[in-house]
């Protein structure tokens, strides 16, 4: 391990700034995926093992839209809307039939969706690695803050993810729709008895969750390779986030995503071969010390 280099980094302001900027951006992208996963679980009681596939589809939709329009804004919108609509289709025709069933059944159906989407991607776009590359319009010199390097595109990504996170927090916490969603998570029967169409609420929540994953996929397309099966590793990290943050807690998911983002950025200096291992160790520690997660209720 290169722990001495890690020690040097955390004592040097420039290195701290560089790695923190990367950690924040990685963490926020992870948060978009994990918040959708936790939202869908919290409201629908569904462990969406296919969540990573919506991330992947978001990346491909963005790639396709970018190829046509050369506009990153359009690409991101295409990723969000495309993944949300696709999520809606799968929710209506498949997943809504397995709400409340045991996790094994959910795993089976979701695995089916993963296979379908992976193959669809290979048929439509081929099996090769693809990359969007950072769009020319967003290629600018990095910001230099206290000697640290903050790539311009990372700053853009952080700003977009922060806005999406703020909209999500506002929507869930401060709007009537958000209050209905939270009530439906606890007592759907009573929400229905008050004249609210819970089927519609469920479908919207799933579409929002899939759209968040799609947003992360689209935003990552310029900096990560886009390939069939790309959803798996982000899915595993999202599960680690929900364990650390507490299943169903969006605030917990934010804290956990940032912890993992920093683990990744600083770990790449201090223990590059053990980054994933470190994530699992953090997860194990949380499970031992606070089994319900950082944002979860004790005893639940």
């Amino acid at each position, binding site marked *: 391990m290169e722990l001495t280099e890690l020690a040097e980094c955390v004592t040097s302001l420039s290195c701290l700034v560089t790695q923190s900027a990367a950690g924040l951006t990685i963490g926020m992208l992870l948060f978009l995926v994990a918040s959708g996963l936790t939202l869908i679980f919290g409201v629908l009681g569904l462990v969406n093992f296919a969540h990573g596939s919506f991330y992947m589809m978001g990346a491909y939709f963005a790639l396709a839209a970018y190829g046509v329009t050369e506009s990153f804004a359009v690409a991101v919108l295409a990723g969000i809307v495309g993944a949300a609509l696709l999520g809606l289709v799968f929710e209506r025709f498949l997943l809504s039939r397995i709400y409340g069933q045991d996790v094994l059944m959910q795993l089976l159906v979701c695995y089916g969706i993963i296979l379908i989407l992976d193959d669809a991607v290979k048929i439509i776009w081929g099996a090769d690695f693809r990359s969007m590359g950072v769009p020319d319009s967003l290629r600018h010199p990095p910001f230099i803050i206290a000697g640290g390097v903050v790539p311009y595109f990372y700053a853009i990504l952080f700003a977009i993810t922060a806005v999406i996170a703020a909209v999500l927090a506002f929507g869930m916490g401060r709007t009537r729709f958000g*209050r*209905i969603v*939270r009530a439906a998570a*606890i007592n759907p*029967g009573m929400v229905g008895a*008050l004249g609210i*169409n819970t089927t519609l609420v469920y479908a919207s929540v799933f579409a929002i969750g899939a759209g968040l994953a799609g947003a992360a996929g689209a935003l990552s397309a310029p900096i990560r390779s886009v390939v069939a099966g790309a959803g798996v590793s982000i899915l595993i990290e999202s599960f680690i986030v929900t364990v650390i943050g507490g299943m169903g807690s969006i605030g917990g998911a934010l804290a956990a995503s940032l912890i993992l983002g920093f683990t990744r950025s600083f770990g790449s200096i201090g223990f590059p071969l053990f980054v994933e291992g470190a994530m699992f160790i953090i997860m194990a520690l949380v499970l031992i010390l606070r089994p319900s997660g950082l944002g979860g209720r004790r005893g639940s």
Partner: protein
Amino acid sequence: MSELLVEGLDAAYGASQVLFGVSLSVERGETLALMGRNGAGKSTTFKAIAGILPPRAGRVMVRGVDVAGQKPYRIARAGIAFVPEDRQVFPEHTVEENLEIGERAGLGGREWNRARAFEIFPMLAPLRNRMAGRLSGGEQQMLTIARSLMGNPSVLLLDEPSEGLAPLIVREIGHLILRLRQLGTTIILAEQNSRFCLGVATSVAVIDRGAIAWRGSVEEFRADPAVQATYLQV
């Protein structure tokens, strides 16, 4: 036209049939007490009307429209507000948010809204920002009644609002129901506590083993001790 007309309602939990052709009707402004022993079928009648337990047979006409067998949210929108026995406030929402979730224009118009709820239920006003899970049982009961009115329903189904509450609180709920009656609200009140419901109702229906056994005004009911002896006393 009756606000609510129920005809020949059959309902069952799995294989065990509980309602056998229940028929009822309430006119606008009426407060009907639905009385019956433990297990007679009061709550089941409400659940069947509200669509929570879809009936096996029968009609549920709300202002002339048959809603039997529709989804609960559609029946609620058609004008039926159901306040279940166990209250079911949203515990992690504030009082005001609980009311907001129920807020909807009904066929009866937009007469009810949060401001009006706090006016008619003044005890809720100082609690508006408190989590509903932290309210007392009586306050929760008030809140569920107020919340169900937010949808501007044609008929309010109240399932044992006095259950498990201290006598003083029961009196307060009684006053409230009288106030709603003065405002012209149409109510069906399921109760075992006959002193409580005779004080607030205008008419009485007695249910026994899943069928309506007696029907009349409160005065007729009081004048007929045989009915009480046969169907209500243990």
